[in-house]
C-alpha cells in the first residue's frame, strides 16, 4: 500500500519537475513546481515526518512560490522574449539529460547504495518536540548561523534595492 503511494507521488514529482523545465510559460512552470513540491511533501509524510511535510508546504508552496509568481507576473515575459531565453545549445542539454539519468540509475541499482551507512533512522514518526530539542541542542550552531545568513540576505537585498543618488 505504502509502496503504491510512494510510486505515485514519486512519478508525479518527477513528471512535474520535468514539466517545470520544459514548459515555455513561466506561470505554467511555477504551477508545476508547486505540484512537484507538494509531492515531495507527500513523500515526507510517507517517511513519517509530518512536521517536515507541513513545513515544506507552508514555506515552499505557500510562501516562496507566491513570491516567484509575484515576480513572474510583474516581469510579464512575452512569447517573443521566451524564445531568447531558451539557449541555442539546448540539443546538447537534451542529449546529456538521458545520459545523466542513466548514470544515476546505474549507480543506484548497481552501486550498492547505503553500504556504508550505519545509522538508518527508524520508522517511528518524528515528534515536533524532538525536532525542536535537536534543533536547539545538537544543531544550535547551524541554526544560529542560518539566522545570520537570513539577516545578510536581507541587508544585501535592501542595499541593492535601496534608492540612492549615485553617479553612473
Amino acid at each position: 500500500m505504502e509502496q503504491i503511494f510512494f510510486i505515485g507521488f514519486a512519478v508525479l514529482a518527477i513528471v512535474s519537475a520535468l514539466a517545470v523545465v520544459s514548459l515555455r510559460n513561466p506561470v505554467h512552470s511555477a504551477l508545476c513546481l508547486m505540484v512537484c513540491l507538494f509531492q515531495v511533501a507527500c513523500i515526507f509524510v510517507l517517511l513519517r515526518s509530518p512536521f517536515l511535510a507541513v513545513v515544506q508546504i507552508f514555506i515552499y508552496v505557500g510562501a516562496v512560490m507566491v513570491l516567484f509568481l509575484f515576480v513572474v507576473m510583474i516581469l510579464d515575459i512575452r512569447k517573443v522574449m521566451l524564445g531568447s531565453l531558451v539557449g541555442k545549445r539546448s540539443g546538447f542539454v537534451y542529449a546529456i539529460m538521458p545520459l545523466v539519468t542513466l548514470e544515476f540509475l546505474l549507480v543506484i541499482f548497481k552501486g550498492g547504495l547505503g553500504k556504508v551507512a550505519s545509522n538508518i533512522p527508524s520508522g517511528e514518526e518524528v515528534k515536533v518536540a524532538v525536532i525542536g530539542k535537536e534543533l536547539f541542542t545538537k544543531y544550535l550552531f547551524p541554526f544560529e548561523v542560518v539566522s545570520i545568513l537570513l539577516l545578510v540576505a536581507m541587508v544585501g537585498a535592501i542595499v541593492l534595492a535601496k534608492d540612492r543618488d549615485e553617479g553612473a
Partner: protein
Amino acid sequence: MMIGINDILAILPELIVAGSVCVLLLVDFLIGKENKALMGYLSLAVIFAAAIATWSMTRSGSLPVDAFNGMISVDKIAVFFKVIFFIATALTIMLSLSYIKDKNINLGEYYALLLFSLTGMMITASSSDLLSIYLGIELMSLPIYALVGFRVRDGRANEGAMKYVILGAFSSAVMLFGISFIYGLTGTTEISGIAEALRSADAQPAALGIAIVMLVAGFGFKIAGVPFHMWAPDAYEAAPTPITAFMSVAAKTAAFVVFVRVFVDGFAPIVEQWQLILTVLAILSMLVGNTVAIAQTNIKRMLAYSSIGHGGYALLGIIAATPEGTSSVMFYLLVYAFMNLGIFGVIVMMNRDKSGGELITDYTGLAKKNGALALVMLIFLFSLAGIPPTAGFMGKFYVFMALINEGMVWLAVVAVIFSAVAAYFYIRVIMLMYMKEPEREFSYARPLSVLIVITISLIAVILLGVLPDRIIELAEKAVGIL
C-alpha cells in the same frame, strides 16, 4: 548536550565579528553620508578585536577545541587560515576607504557586508561538520553577491552580479546534493565521522563517486576552478576593485579550507578516488587560466584568469594529500593574499579617472612618469609570475616540493611549464610600463590607506620571499609535522 561557556569561547572571534556588525548596522544610521569612512575604521577595529581573540586562543594552549557537539573544531589550521582572512579583509577595507567615496557608492552597509563575509569564512575555517561548512560558505558568498552588484546603476555590474548569483546558487545546490549523498552513504555529516565510516566500510559504493564529483563541482565553483570558472572574469570585472581583490583572495582561501577539511581530512581513506578528479581540475585550471589570460585587454579580467591559474597551483598541494601538502597550500595562500592585494592596491590607485586603470594599455609608459609605482607593480607581477627573490616563487616552490615528495613528479613538471606560460602575460605588462613612451598624463588616487596597503604587501612579499622559514614553520606546526 547543553551549550556551555566553552562552546561560546570557541567561537568568540566569530561572535565578536557577527555581533559588532549588527551594532555597526545601527551605528550606520547615525553617521552622515560624508563620514562613512568612520564605518571602515570601526570595522578595522572589529577585525583587530577578533584577531586578538584568536591570538589569545592560541596563547591559552588549549587548541584544538571542539564545540557545539562536533560542529566546530578550532585547531591551528583554522587559526592560520583565520589570520589570512583577517589580513585580507583588513587590507580590503583599507583599499575601499577612498575608492567607494570616489565611485560614489559610499554606503555603510559595504563594510557590514564585508564583515559578514568574514564571519562566514571564519566559520568555514573552524567547522568540522559538513552542515556548518556549507552554512559558512553560504554566509561568505551571500554578501559577496551583493557587493559584486554594488554599483547598481552600472549595467556591467548588474550583469556580472546576476551571473555570479545564479551560477552560485546552482553550485550551492549541487554542493548540497553532494552533501546529502555523503550523509546518506555514511549516516553522518561530521567530518571525522565520515572518515571513520569510510575507513570501516568494506567496499566503496559507486554512489560515493557521484557525491565526490558533486562536491568538487560545488567547491570548485568557489575557487573558480576550470570548468566551473565561467563566472569569474565577469564577476571580477563587474565588482568594485577592492571587492575583486577580496573575492580573489579571501573567498578563494575559504574554499581551500573546505578542500583541506573535506578532502584531505574527511575523504582521506578514499584518496585515490578524488585525487584524479582534482588533478584534472588543477591541470585544466592552470591551462585555461594561464593561456586565456594572454588574450585579455582588461587588467581585472587578466587577473581573474591569473587567479584561476593560481587556484590550479594551490590545488596541487591538496592533491598531494599529505600534511606537507596542506602546509604548502597554507603558505601559498598567504603569499597569494599579499601579492594579489598589493597589485589590486596599485589598480585602485590607477582607478582615479573614469576609464583609467582598467585597461592594460593604461599602464603604458608608467615607469617614465612614476618610477616608484612602476617598480612596485613590477615586484608584484614578478611575484605572481613566480620569479625567484619574491614570495610567489617560494609559494610555488613548496607546493611543488610537496608534490615531488609524494612522487607526482610529472604533475610538478606540468605545473612548472604552465608557470613559464604564465610569466608571458605578466611580463607583457612590465614591458608596457618600462619599454614604451607614456601616451597620456596619469592621475593617481593616493590616499594614505592605499599606500599603507601597498607598503605592507610589498614588505610581506619581499620578506616571505627572502625569509619564509618562520611562516613555513608555523604552517607546518599547524598541520602537525613539527
